[in-house]
Structure formats: C-alpha cells, structure tokens
C-alpha cells in the first residue's frame, strides 16, 4: 500500500494514469478527484509561469494553443530548479521540434528573445564605465582596448525579423515587421531590459567584444561581415544601454588626459 514518490510523480504528470492505490479519502475510498487537485496545481502553475515568461509567443499562437503547447512542454521539460523566474530555457528548442507550430518558423527565435529579456532582468547589477574614457583613448589605444560588457547584455541572432515581431506584438502602433533577418541586442537600464535592432555586423562586433577580443579585432570582424558596418550606431547602443562596464588598455593607464588638455 505504500506510495513512493516515483509512483506519485508518474501519476501526477499523466492525467490518464490511475491514482496510485494507497491514496485515499477520509473514508478510505480511492482519492480520485482529490489527487487531481495536485495534478491541476502542477499543470496550471507551470503553464502560468510560461505564460508570464513568453507573452509574445502566447500572443502569436493564441491562448488556447499556448496552453496546450505548455502542457506538452512542462511534461517533457519539467523545471530542473525551483527558481521559476528562468524556467523555459528549453522552450525555444522545444518549439523548433513542435510540429503543430511548424508553420510559424520564427516562433523559436521569438522565444529566444523573450528568454534573453528575462535573463537580462535577473542578471547581476553593474555600473557603466564613463564613456569619456573611451573617447579619451588615442586611436591605437582604442583599437587595442578590451571592453567588459554588462552581464545583463544579450545578443540574439536570427534569420527572422524578431525585433520587428517583438515590437509589433508589444507596442501600440508599431510598424509591420519587415521581411528580413534581424539581430537584436538586449541591454538593461534602470532595471528594465530593452531589445534594440542591431545593424548588420553589430552582432559580430558585440559578441567578439563579449569574448574578450580587442576593440580593433572586433571591428575587423564586423567589417568582414558588413563592409559598411555602422560602428557609431552599435557603440551608441552599448553606451546608451549602460552595457560597457569597464575598459582595459594593454599598457598601464597613465592619468587620463584632462578635458582641457
């Protein structure tokens, strides 16, 4: 009559499975609907966690479809941690293989963007470096400099117009998404992550900086991808997004030149 947690869980996650014998009501009758309370709690609470996490995916597929999809996902990929704020890291991968949604090819990338925004929201706090430090560097020093980027920064590359799709589904009056690939930079200011459209080559530039490549080499990389890479625009996003937290130059830094020098 003993019910171990393996049997309990198996029945919990399978609404068609019989309730384990040994779980009873006050009169000793099989627990029946009383067991369903737990089934319901698990499925509903995890579905709600996914609804909060992926509002744009939900909007794109509709409430009923999302609930059904979440029910499949939460059984195949139950949380592996009690920290539900990041539950759903496997959702994009799941969506890539979820046949009923196969006609919406961009769905997994929209989910990746939404997950990136959540990760950014919970990432460690950092203070931005003073942008004047970058401007003060001589060209050679700038090219050799390595930047530390904020842990709240994320880059999402996509063959789909994910930034446009995200905006169209979150902002009143946003334009129709264009029919082109878009890479997205997520930065966080005042605790609020925001996705920004990256110019061609921008993802290469930022990812190179993230991996510790020098400014000059990162720029070179971006220019091999996009000959007319817009450095000013990308750097503007990083600075405006408070995403550069430190600037390292190879030589021991002298006193920074004063503004009047």
């Amino acid at each position: 009559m003993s019910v171990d947690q393996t049997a309990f869980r198996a029945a919990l996650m399978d609404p068609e499975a019989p309730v384990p014998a040994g779980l009873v009501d006050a009169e000793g009758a099989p627990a029946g609907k009383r067991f369903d309370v737990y089934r319901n709690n698990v499925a509903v609470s995890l579905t709600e966690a996914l609804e909060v996490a992926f509002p744009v995916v939900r909007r794109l597929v509709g409430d009923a479809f999302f609930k059904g999809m979440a029910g499949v996902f939460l059984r195949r990929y139950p949380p592996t941690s009690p920290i539900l704020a990041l539950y759903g890291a496997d959702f994009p991968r799941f969506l890539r293989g979820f046949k009923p949604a196969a006609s919406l090819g961009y769905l997994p990338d929209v989910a990746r963007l939404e997950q990136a925004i959540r990760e950014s929201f919970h990432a460690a706090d950092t203070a931005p470096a003073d942008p004047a430090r970058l401007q003060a560097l001589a060209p050679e020093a700038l090219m050799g400099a390595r930047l530390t980027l904020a842990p709240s920064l994320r880059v999402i590359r996509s063959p789909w117009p994910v930034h446009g799709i995200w905006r169209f589904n979150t902002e009143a009056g946003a334009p129709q998404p264009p029919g082109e690939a878009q890479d997205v930079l997520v930065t966080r200011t005042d605790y609020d992550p925001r996705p920004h459209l990256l110019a061609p080559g921008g993802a290469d530039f930022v990812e190179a900086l993230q991996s510790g490549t020098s400014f000059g080499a990162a720029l070179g990389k971006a220019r091999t991808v996009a000959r007319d890479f817009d450095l000013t625009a990308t750097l503007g996003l990083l600075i405006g997004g408070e995403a550069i937290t430190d600037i390292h130059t190879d030589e021991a830094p002298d006193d920074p030149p004063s503004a009047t020098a």
Partner: protein
Amino acid sequence: MPDAAHRSDFALPIAAGVGYKPRHFSEIMADPGSVGFLEIHAENYMGEGGRMVAQLGHLAERLPISLHGVGLSIGGEGRLDRGHLARLARLNDWLRPAAFSEHLAWSTHAGAYLNDLLPLPYTNATLQRVADHIDEVQEALGRRMMLENPSAYLVFAESTWAEPDFLREIARRTGCALLLDVNNVFVSATNLDFTPQGYIDAFPLDLVREIHLGGHAEDVDEHGRPLLIDDHGHRVAGAVWALFDYTIARAGPRPTLIEWDADVPEWPVLESEAARAARSLREAVT
C-alpha cells in the same frame, strides 16, 4: 544547537504581516499601515541582481522580513539539492531575515521540480528523513527554521502518525520551531473530516513562531463531499478567522501573516486583511 546562541532565529514582531508582491512596493514604502512585517518566497529572490533584489533590499531596511522557502523539498525521498541550499544560505546571509520557514512537503523528484507542495505519508521512516533534512538545512543556514503544516486533500493509507504528533516529534529531534497555517488546518479538517479545533488542541502551540492565514476555494469531490482548495486567492474565510481567534486564545498572540498569491488584490484590500489580523492579536493580549 544551543538556544542562547540562536535567540535571533525567530525575531518577527508580534504583528500582522503580508506576503510581499512587487506590485505593492511603492505603497508599502510610503506607508505600510497595519503591516508589521513582510514575507517573501525565497526562490523569487535568487537572481543575481535586478529590480526585485534591489527592492527587497529597500524593504528590508523598512520592515522585518520572514524568508519563506517553497522549493527545498524537505519531504523528498532524495537528497536535498545542495546547490539550492547554498543559494538559500547566500540569500539568508545577505538578507538577514527575522525568520526562515519551509514546508512539510516535497516538490522535487529525480531532478525535476514540480512546483507544488506535495504530500508525504507520516511514518517512522519519513519522520526520520524529514528530521535529517531539517538538520542539514539548519546546519547550512546556521539558524533554526520553522516547519509549516500542509493543506491535505487526501490521506496515505500507510500513515501511522497524526500530523500534530508528527510535527511535534520532528521539532523534538531537530530543535526546529513550527509555522502553523490556520487556513491549512481548516482546509485539511474539512477535506479529511476532522474537527479543526481538535487539531489545534493537539498541536504543540508552544513551538509556534509564526501563523499563516490565507484564502481558499470551495469545491466538491466526486461523492459530493466538500473539497476545499488552498489557493491563496481570496479573503480569509470567516470560519478561518474564528479558528485563528481560537488558536491565539490558547497560544497567545503570534506573528501572523496574510498570504494572497493568486488574483492579488489592490494594496488597501490586502492591508485591510492585515488590519483584521492585527485587531485579533491586540484582543488576544488583553
């Protein structure tokens, strides 16, 4: 653990508190009204940073915090998740809450977190396992904890212990205190057909360092018998207020928390529930 060294393990004021929701941040910071402490779910504040952690830091300067874990799976058959326990210890060290509590329940199995407080049979074997897990938690946190009684919807035929005795014995073996959820008592009593006052009479009230109150939903089972669901989505029911008054008439006033986690109301509604609890606490003193 020697008592004297851990006097601050249970430092909540004898006052009414509420479960904290981020949407109420500004109102609480402006004027907490009848609310004398806040409770937070530990797992919601384990991020590396961001607004939620920052706001918690501000709140903790303003009000005592009760740290309430929902994910340790103390009743689990497997080992405790050491990584999770370490995260909890870090949060405890940073926040220095007035108290820490967890549930007599399990939620993790073979690496999967099921996000519900699942029931366990009350046997000698499960008692020892829970006691061992509580020893490990108290060791990791360097403080004593409170263990909370669950809401029950069903019974394990194999159980040999009554719940109040089971909790009393766990507390005796581990030195932990108890968190008495009066709504859970009412829900369980209705669902399992016992008198809630009898449960309170049997409960080791001297070990209670915090009381929980919350709302429940009403349903019926397939036999037409009442089935109450502990959903924390309503005002505290009249019968639960009466059971609360019955409890503190015997136990004396204790730190008392209003839990409202689903369909969270506007701040004045939640504050009014705390005010109602505070009134009972004042009357229990006299």
